[in-house]
């Protein structure tokens, strides 16, 4: 389609909470007939992993709603991050929020194009085999080629 709208997203973050915006917006835009490209860089690459193990931490995030008030010195205790992650995943499942695995599947099914930043793949010593299949490896110049033609560009 020549007049198809296009969305380009840069996704830079790899915590469980920040994995959501690029995938929610990407899948929704695809459902609205946009051609969608997500350029994953830095910690965002964690979301592209085949075996993803995304976590959320209350530490350094005073805006995170907690069931009980939790002093920072408690938040740094071993196991707190794992506990917060389990609690968040349970809460999400209970509220009918899709998992990241599901959203990624739906994004790929909807032909959302995934590009991994080759520079950060090198930086973190990730192997291409660790990332999901069908990913393109490229750099900043490739992003601009896509972004110059996009109707909407987001940095997340």
């Amino acid at each position, binding site marked *: 389609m020549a007049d198809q709208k296009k969305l380009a997203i840069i996704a830079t973050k790899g915590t469980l909470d920040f994995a959501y915006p690029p995938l*929610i917006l990407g*899948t*929704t835009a695809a*459902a*609205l*007939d946009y051609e969608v490209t997500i350029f994953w860089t830095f910690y965002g690459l964690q979301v592209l992993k085949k075996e993803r193990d995304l976590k959320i931490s209350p530490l350094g995030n005073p805006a995170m709603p907690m069931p009980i008030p939790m002093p920072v010195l408690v938040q740094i205790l071993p196991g707190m991050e794992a506990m917060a992650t389990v609690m968040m995943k349970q809460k999400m499942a209970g*509220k*009918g*929020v*899709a998992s990241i695995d599901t959203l990624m599947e*739906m994004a790929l099914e*909807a032909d959302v194009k995934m590009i991994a930043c080759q520079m950060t793949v090198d930086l973190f010593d990730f192997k291409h085999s660790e990332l999901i299949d069908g990913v393109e490896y490229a750099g900043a110049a490739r992003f601009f080629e896509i972004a110059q033609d996009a109707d909407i560009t987001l940095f997340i």
Partner: protein
Amino acid sequence: MADSTLDAKGLNCPLPILRAKKALKGLATGQVLAIEATDPGSAKDFESFCVQTGNELIKASENSGVYYYEIKKKG
């Protein structure tokens, strides 16, 4: 009458929209998809979905927390 029905109850954004898009793919032009949802955000979202995709929202109602929509597939 609807040609197909989608139960999106209990699902949260963006799943009702994504499931509806998928369900519409399986329909022919002019056929109607009925959707039931419980996400209050779906009211505005289905309106926006139809405005942007050209499908026609022919019915939207709410009854004790269950939202009901009928979408006619565009030509």
